[in-house]
């Protein structure tokens, strides 16, 4: 075995163009399929693009994708086709990540140093993945190198931001071991000079991943993975309450632990099975000490255990069936609920079945369903059907229709949380709300209650029905265009809403099923290759959202707004802007240069049009008279060179135009500079 330095990393200088390439895609069928045979709308972000963009966190990578908006509030969450972060399931190598705060899984927590590709499926996918897969699925596929390899990189940038990766792969005859370590730290930044929120947040994060693969025989293999992620946030939180500022020293620690143990066995040419045990735990601890000496401690622990078996049966050349079943147990302990010692439990039994039919050369049909039997709530049936029609070698059409669901989570039922640091607002879960608020009312602490307080009741699961129609056209080797129309109809949407105020004016929130919302729109993605060195890509999303009940009220003529002179008038439907935090237009453009010598440069522009932030005129709907985040553009630039001896150098500027909006985009730092140094060697054998 000889070590040689590599001039070509697996994803370096490899042609990335091609919706229709022979690339394998696993997320759509829970089993590997060629991308040109996938019948649902998908996107792939390949590792090379991630590396060349200089991005280090998953949030930064997804921000640049068509149809995805990053929300800011409880970290960076992903909004897919206008649906909130709660409705997109995030997987690492097919396994779900847990640990959401207010429904948001903070994508800053995920390092992208060892990612091979990110697969995205758009549209309800509960038929395979169960709860949370309502808007779609984002699956992060880690880079499982096939040979001995060592990869290291160091990145340093503005705000003393440091990011270091080391990845080591060692392969013996039947065993392969792969380790990955990432360390990230930043001094934080302040984009809100006069803010009532944290203004310096030094963060350290480290991620360790260990994977062992053992091929017992040609037909049986064992795969064990382990991932540990640790995050520390130190903050000085300044809370201004009616003019006085109270400073608190905060220490927030988040720990994630995931482990999988998989046995793969191929019985014969036709049947293979995968027995998968998955365990994950998320712990979040917050300690705050105010200057007045009042400690505030917050603990959230979530456990998720799952055993699943999936069997794939190739019945004949054109027919294929996947059958899966599993058990999930979930447990949550939190100081945010009534009592930290009383664990809230849930147990789910599920079964899914999907049939794939390759009818001749032109048509691929997938029909499947999943049934989730939930201990705490009603069971859920999630059917899905999708069709691919290959018109000719250049043009293909896809139609998919499916239903997704999301069970009310622990937080929405049991939360009992008062933020002592930030203005003493409270959030109460639906089960708790009326009980707690009643008690507070008797103590004379309630200032007023809104009409929706009286609508609080037992939560129901949320359902979404999605229809996606898309066309993919590849007129020649250098051009691709993908057009997609989508519509998601959501019933029983659960949303946090203010239900009243304390006497002090602080808000009280709880959860309600806001029935019947929708998101609909259009996505266009194109890729162009001009010559061997130059290429570009464009992406556009047009999005319309709305709360159907509110629209009905507006049509009835019982919703009002103010004229500029302060007098009132009826709200017109044209004034209505739909759901908050959704932007009508999003645009991405990327220009890419890459030559034979290993030099590359790219410039990426991201545009997002205005979005409603807060309902300031009190009419309970979001309209043109409310508060908006201003539409903006960010420009990112990155350039680098790969040398033949294994070294690589990269430098870049993010947010070149220095767009800052402290109120609405607290996660967006101003202009930042960075440099990356890499060294990789790999055994080419």
């Amino acid at each position, binding site marked *: 075995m000889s070590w040689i330095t590599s001039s070509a990393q697996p994803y370096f200088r490899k042609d990335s163009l091609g919706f229709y390439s022979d690339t394998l895609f696993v997320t759509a069928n829970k089993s590997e399929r060629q991308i040109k045979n996938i019948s649902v709308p998908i996107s792939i972000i390949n590792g090379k693009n991630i590396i060349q963009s200089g991005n280090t966190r998953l949030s930064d990578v997804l921000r640049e994708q068509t149809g995805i908006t990053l929300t800011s509030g409880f970290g960076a969450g992903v909004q897919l086709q206008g649906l909130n972060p709660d409705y997109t399931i995030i997987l690492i190598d097919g396994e779900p990540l847990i640990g959401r705060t207010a429904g948001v899984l903070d994508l800053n927590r995920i390092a992208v140093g060892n990612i091979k590709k990110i697969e995205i499926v758009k549209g309800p996918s509960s038929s395979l993945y169960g709860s949370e897969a309502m808007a779609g699925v984002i699956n992060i596929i880690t880079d499982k190198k096939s040979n001995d390899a060592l990869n290291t990189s160091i990145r340093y940038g503005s705000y003393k931001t440091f990011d270091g990766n080391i990845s080591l792969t060692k392969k013996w005859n039947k065993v392969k071991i792969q380790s990955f370590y990432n360390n990230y730290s930043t001094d934080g930044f302040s984009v809100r000079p006069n803010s009532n929120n944290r203004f310096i947040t030094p963060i350290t994060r480290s991620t360790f991943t260990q994977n062992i693969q053992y091929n017992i025989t040609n037909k049986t293999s064992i795969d064990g993975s382990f991932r540990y992620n640790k995050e520390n946030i130190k903050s000085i939180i300044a809370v201004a309450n*009616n*003019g*006085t500022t109270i400073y608190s020293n905060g220490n927030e620690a988040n720990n994630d632990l995931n482990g999988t143990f998989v046995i793969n066995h191929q019985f014969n040419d036709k049947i293979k099975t995968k027995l998968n045990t998955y365990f994950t735990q998320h712990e979040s601890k917050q300690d705050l000490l105010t200057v007045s000496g009042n400690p505030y401690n917050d603990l959230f622990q979530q456990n998720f255990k799952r055993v699943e078996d999936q069997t794939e049966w190739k019945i004949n050349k054109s027919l294929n069936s996947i059958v899966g079943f599993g058990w999930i147990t979930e447990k949550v302990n939190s100081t945010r609920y009534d009592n930290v010692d009383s664990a809230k439990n849930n147990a789910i039994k599920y079964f899914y079945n999907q049939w794939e039919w390759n009818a001749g050369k032109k048509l691929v049909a997938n029909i499947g369903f999943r049934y989730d039997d939930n201990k705490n709530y009603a069971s859920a049936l999630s059917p899905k059907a999708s069709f691919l029609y290959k018109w000719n070698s250049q043009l293909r059409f896809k139609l998919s229709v499916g239903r997704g669901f999301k069970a009310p989570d622990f937080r929405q039922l049991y939360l009992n949380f008062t933020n002592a640091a930030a203005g003493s607002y409270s959030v109460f879960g639906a089960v708790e709300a009326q009980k707690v608020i009643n008690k507070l009312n008797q103590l004379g602490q309630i200032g*007023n209650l809104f009409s929706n307080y009286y609508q609080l009741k037992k939560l129901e699961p949320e359902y979404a029905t999605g229809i996606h129609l898309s066309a993919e056209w590849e007129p020649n080797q250098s051009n691709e265009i993908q057009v997609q129309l989508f519509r998601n109809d959501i019933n029983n949407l659960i949303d946090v809403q203010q239900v009243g105020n304390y006497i002090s004016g602080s808000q009280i929130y709880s959860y309600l099923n806001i029935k019947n919302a929708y998101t609909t729109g259009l996505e266009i993605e194109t890729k162009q290759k001009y010559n061997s060195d130059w290429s570009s890509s464009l992406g556009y999303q047009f999005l319309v959202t709305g709360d159907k009940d509110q629209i009905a009220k507006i049509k009835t003529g019982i919703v009002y*707004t103010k004229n500029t002179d302060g007098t*009132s008038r009826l709200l017109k439907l044209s004034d209505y802007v739909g759901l908050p935090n959704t932007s009508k237009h999003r645009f991405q453009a990327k220009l890419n240069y890459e030559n034979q010598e290993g030099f590359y440069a790219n410039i990426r522009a991201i545009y997002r049009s205005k979005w409603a932030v*807060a309902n*300031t005129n*009190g009419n309970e709907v979001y309209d043109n008279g409310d508060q908006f985040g201003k539409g903006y553009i960010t420009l990112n630039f990155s350039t680098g060179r790969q040398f033949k001896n294994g070294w690589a150098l990269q430098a870049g500027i993010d947010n070149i135009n220095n767009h800052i909006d402290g109120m609405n985009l607290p996660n967006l730092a101003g202009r930042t500079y960075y440099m990356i140094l890499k060294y990789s060697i790999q055994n080419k054998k």
Partner: protein
Amino acid sequence: MKKTVTYILFIATFTFLLASCSKSTTTVVAPLSATTVKDLPADTIIGITAQGQPYGAGKYTFYSLEKNTIIANSDSATTKWDLAFNGTKILTNGGTSGMGLGGAFVQVGLFDDLKTISTDSVFKTDNAPASYAVTYGSGKGWYTYDPINNLITPLAGRVLVIRTASGKYAKVEVIAYYKGGATLATTATDAEKMSKQRYYTFRYIFQPNGTKVF
């Protein structure tokens, strides 16, 4: 079916004739026009407590809708005033607040659309501190408080239907709570939000003839 249509037509015609008859007997009155009161101070801020709470002198500003003028505080125990303002609280001259016949309720709708106070509407009277005729509190009566931006915004489509101290009727729409007659921008400075608040701009129509028709 045809019979029904004929019947409806007959009723419609009959009603029309009736309406025409009654109209001819009504005396034509000049339409009332709205009066706008601008920047009426309502216990404006004079300082900030050690706890950071802004405070005023604690006095009400009394106003006569009938005379369209401020009434001196020394006349608070008379029926000269119709409305009294202190911060976001609006009193009517009745109940626990005054010796007049005052009362009120908040109607959802447009100021101009309110032509007649419906006969079955119930006027509430002040019952301090439990309840007020003009409902007090964010989102309940005439305004909403936005704690993020620390702003008071009058709710759109709210008409304060007032029974005055003398038992006559008026309708009021609050335009703004800030000096200058417009709600401040969310980006206004804290100092500005402090110094310019508690100034009412409102428009009203007072019906001097004692009827509930405007």
